[in-house]
């Protein structure tokens, strides 16, 4: 009679114990965590799949661009400042134009700061300004038409150059003194 009452109570206690000690904590703990981890991995896998498709599309798009154009784009905005190479080019252009360069110097260092911060290791966002620039100041002597030819050459240079400042001082001989500031850019 006693055992017939104790055993069901014991069974009830065991059932409660199993439920509250194992079933419920396992369900709300590790099982939920694993499920959310699986969700995250599924999202990551979907992103990886989307990335693969996007990469293939981009590779296909890039292959449609003429390699010569890509080279020109790289020359238009180079990876480094390379002001020495540029000075050689400017000197050659001045010589072709009939100008005589007398002094070339780097006047300011105006590094462009990024417009948005990116976390370490993260890919740069689209709005991040990735260019830097410095100003070259140069003095030259020559005729007015030589200046025009030189200016036109600078403006249509394969590497983008912005003339920021020009000073012209006249003379009675037809030979003028020019001072210019030219801003050059590169990709950071």
């Amino acid at each position, binding site marked *: 009679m006693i055992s*017939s*009452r104790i*055993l*069901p*109570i014991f*069974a*009830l206690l*065991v*059932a*409660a114990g*199993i*439920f509250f000690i*194992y*079933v419920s904590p*396992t*369900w709300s703990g590790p*099982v939920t965590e*694993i499920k959310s981890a*699986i969700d995250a*991995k*599924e999202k*990551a*896998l979907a992103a*990886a799949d989307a*990335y*693969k498709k996007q*990469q293939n599309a981009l*590779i296909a798009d*890039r292959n449609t661009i003429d390699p010569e154009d*890509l080279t020109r*784009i*790289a020359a*238009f*905005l180079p990876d480094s400042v390379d002001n020495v190479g540029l000075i050689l080019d400017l000197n050659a252009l001045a010589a072709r134009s009939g100008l005589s360069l007398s002094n070339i110097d780097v006047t300011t260092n105006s590094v462009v700061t990024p417009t948005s911060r990116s976390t370490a290791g993260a*890919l*740069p966002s*689209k709005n991040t*300004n*990735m*260019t830097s620039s410095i100003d070259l100041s140069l003095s030259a002597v020559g005729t*007015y*038409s030589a*200046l*025009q030819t030189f*200016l036109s050459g600078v*403006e*249509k240079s394969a590497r*983008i150059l*912005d*003339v*920021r*400042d*020009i*000073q*012209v*001082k*006249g003379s009675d001989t037809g030979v*003028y003194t020019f001072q210019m500031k030219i801003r050059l*850019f590169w*990709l950071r």
Partner: protein
Amino acid sequence: MLPPSIPTSFVPRSAGVARRRFDFDLTSSLGFLAYILLAVVFALAIGVFSYESILTNNKNVKQATLDKATAAIDSATVKNFVRLRNRLDAGYSLIENHVAFSNFFALFETLIPVTVRFTSLHLALNDTKAVRLDGSGVAKSFNALAVASAAFAADGRIKDAIFPNIVVSSKDGSVSFALTAMLDPKLIAFSPTASAAPVSKLPQESASTTPTL
């Protein structure tokens, strides 16, 4: 006379026997329910354990697939694409803001009469893309200077042209002057097919093909 099927006497049953049977049934039922509950909870525990194992296995499989997909990503390719995108975006922005002072000189030489001579000229571009023009020169006469001033005003691309420090020479009647003005940003905007022809042809004393500086 009563019918023969009806009992002739009534013998009441013991009330204690009926109550005992009722107590026994309730206990048994509760006991049975407790065992059922234990069985259900036990089954639930096995189910949770199995489900957890399946989920863990599933997670490991997905992790392996993800690792494989991550390993397939070539960071150099990504970097090249990002760099190309930045180069194209930055290049587009730079070409939009590219300046061409040769447009100004081409215009200037058509506007200035040969009787006006500049001894110095200074063009400065600031970061807001505004260009300030400062100069000084000598005009053969006051009328020549007036023609230059009218030409600037009529063209409209050399704005706010002010001629201060005007001094008339008592010796030969020539006029020395200074010039300050602002340039229309459109005048110095780069275009591969830019034309610096004046907006309107103006009556001039005579236009020079090369300005006298």
